[in-house]
C-alpha cells in the first residue's frame, strides 16, 4: 500500500538533495522543489508505476512579501486516484522574475488554473498556450491578490465614500 514513507523514499532516490522542507501537516506529504525542476518532479510522479499521481487537484500561488527572492510560491496538489493518496509540493520564485514551467502538457486541467494564477498573482507560466486574464477585466494592469496593496485600496477612484459613511 502506497504511503508517505514510500513516496518520500522514491522521490529522494530520484532527486537526491534537491527536494527540501518535508513535512506532513494533517498527514498530507508536503515538500519543496527548485522551480526549474517542477516539470521533472511532476513527470516522475505521473509516470512512476507505483506513484501514479495522475490527477491535478489544484494549482495556485501564495505571496510571501517578506521572503526576499522567493516571494511567490506555486503550490501543486496531486492525487493518486488508484490508491487514494494525496500530496502537495511547492516551488518558490522571485517576484521580479516569476517564471515557472507550465504543466499544461502533462495535465490539461492546468490550463485553466495557471491562467487564474497568472491573473491574480502574475506568475509567468512558460509554455502555457494562452496565458491571458481569465476572471478579471482585461484592462486590469495589476495582480490583485499580491499582498502589496493596503486592505482599503487607496488608488481606487470608483468608491463612493458617501455611501459608506466616510464622506
Amino acid at each position: 500500500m502506497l504511503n508517505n514513507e514510500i513516496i518520500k523514499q522514491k522521490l529522494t532516490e530520484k532527486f537526491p538533495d534537491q527536494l527540501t522542507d518535508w513535512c506532513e501537516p494533517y498527514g498530507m506529504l508536503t515538500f519543496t522543489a527548485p522551480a526549474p525542476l517542477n516539470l521533472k518532479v511532476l513527470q516522475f510522479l505521473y509516470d512512476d508505476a507505483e506513484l501514479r499521481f495522475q490527477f491535478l487537484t489544484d494549482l495556485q500561488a501564495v505571496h510571501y512579501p517578506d521572503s526576499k527572492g522567493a516571494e511567490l510560491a506555486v503550490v501543486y496538489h496531486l492525487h493518486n486516484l488508484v490508491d487514494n493518496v494525496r500530496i502537495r509540493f511547492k516551488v518558490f520564485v522571485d517576484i521580479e522574475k516569476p517564471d515557472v514551467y507550465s504543466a499544461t502538457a502533462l495535465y490539461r486541467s492546468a490550463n485553466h488554473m495557471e491562467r487564474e494564477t497568472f491573473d491574480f498573482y502574475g506568475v509567468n507560466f512558460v509554455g502555457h498556450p494562452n496565458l491571458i486574464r481569465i476572471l478579471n477585466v482585461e484592462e486590469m494592469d495589476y495582480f490583485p491578490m499580491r499582498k502589496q496593496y493596503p486592505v482599503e485600496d487607496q488608488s481606487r477612484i470608483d468608491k463612493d465614500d458617501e455611501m459608506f459613511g466616510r464622506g
Partner: protein
Amino acid sequence: MATNFEKVVSLARKNSIWPLPFATSCCGIEFMATAASHYDLARFGAERMSFSPRQCDLLLVMGTIAKKMGPVLRQVYLQMAEPRWVVAVGACASSGGIFDTYSVLQGIDQVIPVDVYVPGCPPRPEAILDGFLKIQDLVNAEGLRRRHSDQYKELLAGYGIQ
C-alpha cells in the same frame, strides 16, 4: 384621471409595465418570491416578465454586478427601447454593498442611470413591491415629452449614451 391624452397614456403605461429581471444573486431569489403567487407582482400590471430587452420597460437589477458584468448590463440597457426605467434592487446594485473590493462595480449608477433604489440585503418582497410602486408613480407623473427634454438628454450624455 383620464381627461387628456397624456394622462391616458401615463395610465396605460404605469399599469402595463413589462419588467426585465436582471438577477445575479440573492436579491433575485427575493424577486422570485415577489413575482410568485404570495406577493403577486402581477397585481400591478407587471404580469409579463420578459427577457428580451427590446420589449421591456423596466430593468430590475438584482444582485452584485462585477466590473466584468458592467458592459453586459450596459448593453442590455442600451437594447431597451424608450421609455425605459431602472430599479437597483438591494445594497449591491445600489452601492456595491459589502463587496468593497477591486472586482465589484460600486453601484450600477456608475454605468447606467437609475430611477429607484431599493435598500436591503436582500430587500424583502414588500420592499421590492414598494420600489415598483415608486416606479409606477414616476411613470404616471412623467409627461410624454420628458424623454425629449434637454435635461434627460444631458443625463444620458453624462453616461456616454447616444
